């Protein structure tokens, strides 16, 4: 018999969920509000929540001073490109490790993850020298390459975990029916793994979009994505919170919209293992 859920419990749990959601969302809301304040109001103590002089002058200043669309286009190309390439490499890798594991599979997986344990700044100078020698400094291709490498371990791990949840018997049954590897991958594995693939893709896209170490250090002008755009609004001498908030709001807008529309896939993918 299903457990009875009283109205009171429902109200409490719904309120609690909204409260936690609001708490998590609050910094973003605060940033958006600050982007509509004047610099002095953005810094004011005690801060005003809604009753301040609303202004869009920060957005006008940001538009005048920077080429937002150039940076946004770079972000889309770099984050999108690195994610797609990482997926193309990771799907066969995770598939082979999940369905034909060897004695060393676990070691290989751990080794991959270990590359994420080193702080990136430790290899900044060697990478910078290599990029300089091969002419990759300040190029989108260079950033796609480095972000793809950086996120590859996470993508492989995530996909490996999803693939492992898929019963081998189903694939074997397909093989018994005479399916080739290609057909097995496309018609049997993919439909079952779609939520996992989608959430991995989205998470990787968000990680690449937000990556701020390599993108700041390896790009100058031509390939500079939105992270560089944001970094140009922090000032050591002079108030900047309102303009920085406007720049940040513009920078997260595309990924926020994407996340909003694909949240169902994201949640389904992330809880895939638990609800099968």
């Amino acid at each position, binding site marked *: 018999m299903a457990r009875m859920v009283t109205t009171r419990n429902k109200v409490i749990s719904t309120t609690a969920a909204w409260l936690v959601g609001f708490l998590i969302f609050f910094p973003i809301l605060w940033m958006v509000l600050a982007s509509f304040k004047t*610099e*002095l109001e953005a*810094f*004011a*103590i005690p801060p005003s929540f809604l009753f301040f002089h609303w202004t869009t002058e920060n957005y006008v200043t940001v538009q005048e*001073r920077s080429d937002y669309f150039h940076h946004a286009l770079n972000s889309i190309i770099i984050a999108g490109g690195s994610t797609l390439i990482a997926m193309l490499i990771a799907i066969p890798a995770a598939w082979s490790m999940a369905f034909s594991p060897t004695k060393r599979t676990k070691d290989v997986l751990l080794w991959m993850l270990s590359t994420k344990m080193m702080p990136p700044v430790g290899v*900044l*100078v060697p990478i*910078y*020298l290599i990029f*300089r020698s091969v002419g990759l*400094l*300040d190029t989108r291709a260079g950033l796609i390459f480095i972000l793809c490498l950086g996120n590859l371990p996470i993508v492989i791990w995530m996909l490996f975990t999803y693939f492992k949840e898929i019963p081998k018997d189903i694939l074997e049954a397909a093989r018994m029916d005479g399916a080739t590897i290609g057909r097995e991958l496309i018609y049997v594995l993919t439909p079952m793994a779609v939520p996992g693939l989608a959430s991995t893709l989205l998470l990787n896209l968000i990680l690449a979009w937000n990556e701020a170490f390599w993108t*700041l*250090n390896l790009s*100058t*002008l031509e390939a*500079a994505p939105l992270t*560089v755009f944001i*970094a*140009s*609004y*922090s*000032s*050591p*001498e*002079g*108030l*900047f919170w309102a303009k920085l908030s406007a720049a940040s709001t513009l920078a997260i807008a595309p990924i926020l919209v994407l996340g909003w529309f694909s949240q169902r896939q994201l949640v389904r993918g992330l809880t895939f293992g638990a609800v099968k």
Partner: protein
Amino acid sequence: MKNVLCAVAGAASLLISAPSIAQTTLTVATVNNSDMIRMQGLTSEFTTKNPDITVKWVTLEENVLRQRVTTDIATKGGQFDVLTIGTYEVPIWAKKSWLVPLDKLGADYDVGDLLPKIKDAVSVDGKLYAAPFYGESSMVMYRTDLFDKAGLKMPESPTWDFVVDAAKKLTDKSGGVYGICLRGKAGWGENMAFLTAMSNSFGARWFDEKWEPQFNSPEWKKTLATYVDLMKQAGPPGASSNGFNENLALFSAGKCAMWIDATVAASMVTNPKDSKVADKVGFALAPNTGLGKNANWLWAWSLAIPAGSKKVDAAEKFIAWATSKDYTKLVASKEGWSNVPPGTRTSLYKNPDYLKVAPFAKLTLASIDAADPNKPTVKPVPYVGVQYAAIPEFQGIGTQVGQQFSAALSGSTTVDAALSAAQSATEREMKRAGYIK
């Protein structure tokens, strides 16, 4: 149809016969300070006069810029042609041959017009390695109305005793007014800029002539104890996380009776658009203890050319334009005299138009003159720099020490414990770097 053909042919012949101009693109790396943003906006004035040069800007946060530029210059990456650097970097980078000496700034540049202290700070062995874009020292900014109300009169060169007494008298915590606002946020360029300058006025020094750290000296103890005690009694709450911008906001909102910080703040706190106390601000030299040194620093954001640049001639042309007397006039004609970059040229401080709109000009100049990067302390030191020691290790050490002092201010450690931790951390780093055994 015939007409169209003729027009196309004519246009083509014009295109062919037009002299082809080889374009040089300069990439300028800079920080997001209002004077730099203004320069960015005026770039077209330069490119109109120099049609063969295109200027592209990379604006970054100060620490990101420092990391980015250091990586590029150390690896000879050649990504930048003009760099915005501070007086801290100039002597270190010039000695490593990372910068191109600026000896072709043109006959009408008038190097002799640069303020002598600022010129010294960006020169090594008499050669100019960077051209100062704007310079600053630090001074006391105070509320004339609150001083009048309390019956106090700020001397032009106050002592620390006077400042401490006045701060305590002017504090009205229930009314939300604090006697003094000072930097407390940890960092070599944050609280340590202020505290190092303050320690100079108390007769302290970072290192003795043999590079031995001196945090165990009575002078440093007096400096830190005075600072912590003053801030506990007369400072705003949460001061250990306040830097320049936080204090600027507090002072502009009328919450501080005094603020000791960069002279460039003077134009911000007297600007009625951003400051509620614009017409009630007075200025004085940074305090002293009668030992001959005031607690003021010296800094100049300057333009330099990295050794890896392949466009040195164009870069030098741009630097000469951006730091010239004509540039000052250009800013004045477009945005008014109060917006010209301050603190680099003697002629500016003799200009009646500037003096009329800048009530702080006289004290800014006096403060810059009072700081000597080559002889910053009462006792002799082996280093150059007023609020820093110009050695590559200083950034790391300064920030570690700054964290200890910030902790002493927040009360999570004592003054003695902070000084002893600062001493051992500095000793360790200096031994590792080979200055001492």
